């Protein structure tokens, strides 16, 4: 991991929204060398752009390289070749201007909710006072007001993940990267969290990339869906979702939604890959 040569972006990047693209990936390749010495192509010739403020989802079956892509954007995994830029600068390591959420909330059990949310502030040594006010406001936004001094062990899975999302937003990053953030939640909670995420996104206007293996979730959340296929991991389609916003759960039953689902599923069926 190239943590030594990291790109440090200014905390506030006001110029970002003026740029045509926040993220530009060109001819991105990632090759893993396994322990037996074989080369596995995780990503092949991946290229796309993300505009500032856009909500992009990446959908694909297991092994399509979607998590690899996200980790490269997060700067915690080095690419093998190609270029990828964040706000015009090549990504060479983790950036202070990115927030990440993984499938597991990975909260620190000895820190209470507020202290967990403040983790990026502590790591990046940002001023605490204003960050704490922001953390409390974000916790209110995700409906966790009053839980500031509770410990992760006292929270449900859904609540823990909401703490994780709050943590990813507390340092006001330009880009939010989410790797199957609701994959471990039950279906009911998951729908609820999707609605909440859209609400947070609407209010905070972040650029979001969310990786999922659920086709309906990918469509429901996104402005655009990047469809990926495995062996080797590559982009097979980029779909503009023309459903109106704000979205509500009833849209899942609309004809247009069904057409989007059918189009994505057709990609996977033609590849013989099973829909997860």
């Amino acid at each position: 991991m190239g943590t030594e040569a990291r790109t440090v972006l200014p905390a506030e990047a006001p110029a970002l929204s003026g740029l045509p693209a926040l993220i530009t990936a060109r001819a991105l390749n990632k090759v893993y060398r396994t322990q037996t010495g074989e080369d596995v192509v995780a990503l092949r010739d991946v290229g796309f752009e993300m505009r500032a403020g856009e909500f992009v989802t990446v959908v694909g079956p297991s092994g399509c390289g979607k998590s690899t892509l996200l980790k490269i954007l997060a700067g915690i995994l080095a690419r093998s070749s190609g270029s990828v830029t964040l706000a015009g600068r090549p990504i060479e390591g983790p950036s202070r201007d990115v927030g990440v959420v993984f499938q597991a909330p990975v909260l620190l059990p000895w820190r209470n909710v507020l202290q967990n949310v403040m983790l990026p502030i502590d790591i990046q040594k940002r001023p605490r006072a204003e960050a704490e006010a922001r953390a409390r406001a974000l916790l209110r936004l995700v409906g966790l007001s009053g839980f500031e001094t509770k410990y992760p062990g006292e929270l449900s899975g859904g609540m823990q993940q909401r703490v994780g999302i709050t943590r990813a937003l507390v340092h006001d990053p330009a880009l939010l990267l989410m790797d199957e953030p609701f994959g471990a939640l039950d279906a009911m909670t998951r729908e609820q969290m999707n609605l909440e995420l859209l609400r947070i996104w609407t209010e905070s206007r972040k650029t979001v990339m969310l990786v999922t293996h659920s086709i309906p979730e990918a469509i429901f959340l996104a402005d655009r869906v990047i469809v990926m296929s495995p062996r080797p991991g590559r982009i097979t389609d980029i779909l503009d979702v023309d459903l109106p916003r704000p979205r509500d759960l009833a849209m899942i039953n609309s004809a247009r939604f069904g057409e989007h689902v059918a189009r994505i599923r057709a990609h996977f069926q033609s590849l013989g890959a099973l829909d997860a």
Partner: protein
Amino acid sequence: MSRMRALLRRRPEILLSPLVFVLFVAGWEAAVRGFGIPAIVIPSPSAVLRALVGGILSGELVEHFWVTSAEVILGFTAGASIGFVLGVLVGLFPLLERTIYPYIVAFQTLPKVAIAPIIVIWFGYGIESKIVITATIAFFPVLANTIVGLRAVPRDQVELMVAFTASRWQIFRMARLPQALPYVFVGLDVAIVLAVIGAIVGEFVGSQAGLGYLILQRNFHMDMAGVFAILIILSLMGIGLHLLVNAVQRRVVFWIGSTHDRVMGA
């Protein structure tokens, strides 16, 4: 009264457990008296109790108790500190583990009783040699558990912190070290019990004071009741120290329930 009855129905062991003790002691007393077993083979519980109370009142047991306690606590503190610091260094520098860990394991396989006479020669008949012996026994469980604990941090956790631009040192301080603490306490709990053994072994090998010294002396005089009285004190000392470690653990590692699986217990 009905609450008492409900409690007993739910947890009958709180009555049964003391009952076992009473029956055992009564049976022992009856057997010693009934069969006329000589006191130099098995003393009666009443004789043990007399020796215990007499020894405490005369101050003899108290004096030696403090000597052994000092050896246990100082040796445990030294051994546990060395084990923890070494464990942290090994956790920070994996090369160090590959380089020196084989030697540490080799040292651990050496029976400490076997090297106790050498340590007594080196450090004398006083309290110092007992502290050294106790420390050599107490350090390994803390070292081993610290190393395992520092490895226990989930990969996700590290990746997340790296993504938030955490340095190696920040990841260590904010995630790995706290994550290791429950393991460290398992090691401390094992070490404190071993520390009592270490102190007694050291006193057996060569000493002028302490409960181990007193056991040898009383054994020599065939004062079995007196020896049994010391065994009771040693057992209470072990229980007390174990409870002390547990109490500290509950405060420090407050996020782990007391019923946490102690898989690393030796």
